[in-house]
């Protein structure tokens, strides 16, 4: 490989985001989690399935926002889907560094997720807006 690109080119912010998301995925109720842009591009990745989850989140959010607009409602900021066997997918939109981002979490069971989402979003904002 050309010496211009080295293994030392590691973004501190990227590493810190990875830590935050690793901690999140390590919780007993969380099956998977990804941070992405509004249009579904991964900002951080832990597992090979993350880009797919990020893309799905971007698609769902776009569909939700279009639905809200069609109904003349306010701007949609969260999408929640629950399965029959208690699994739950939460896509939460927030602003970070002037851009919209989506925090997507797949829960193994139905839980009170609001506080966890709020705390994680705050950590991501603090990391990315340094």
């Amino acid at each position, binding site marked *: *490989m050309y*010496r*211009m*690109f*080295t*293994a030392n*080119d*590691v*973004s*501190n*912010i*990227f590493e810190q*985001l990875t830590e935050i998301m690793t901690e999140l995925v390590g919780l007993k109720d969380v099956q998977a989690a990804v*941070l*992405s*842009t509004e249009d579904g*591009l*991964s*900002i*951080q*990745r832990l597992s090979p399935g993350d880009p797919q989850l*990020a893309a799905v989140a971007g698609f769902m959010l776009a569909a939700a926002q279009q639905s809200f607009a069609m109904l003349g409602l306010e701007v949609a900021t969260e999408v929640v889907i629950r399965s029959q066997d208690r699994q739950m997918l939460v896509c939460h939109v927030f602003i*970070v*560094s*002037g*851009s919209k*981002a989506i925090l997507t979490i797949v829960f193994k069971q139905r839980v009170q997720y609001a506080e966890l989402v709020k705390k994680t979003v705050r950590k991501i904002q603090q990391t*990315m807006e340094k």
Partner: protein
Amino acid sequence: MADVSIHNHPLQFSKSQQQELDSSLMRLADRIAAPLVMVTDISGRLILYRGRLSTSQSTALAALAAGSFGAGVEMGNFLGLRGPNAFRQQLHEGKAANLFTIAIDEELLLVVAYTQRTTLGLVRVYSQTAQEEIMELVQVAKEERTTANRLDDMDRDEFGLALTDQLDELFPD
């Protein structure tokens, strides 16, 4: 994409504007661990560069990046994507590294190289932040260029009138 006058009167940045531009690029490079960040104009004239290439290499890369971006915009033209719908971003993807280009206003391009140790999403977020920061400098530089051009025109008009007067004096009817 741009008016012909852009090529005749490229944007000029003052020393303090260049310092702000430099800070913006350094911040971007630091955030995404980019080994190369540069701002070039759409003619391929290198404005500012931060990275591991030599001056001649970076100058050549600026010209190539502008050419490649221009080709992309023309491809969009074929598809009817013009004006506000024209392509504004370009990505060259590889196994080891990628090159991302984003338009800043209508005259400048921000070129960013990044490795697989980061993601396109993160690069997009911070490139857009840098784009907005640089856009503010571009607006000021554009206003200064307009003022300078107006003064040039006035000087030329005054010179023309003075010359006519002199010629009239030299060669009266």
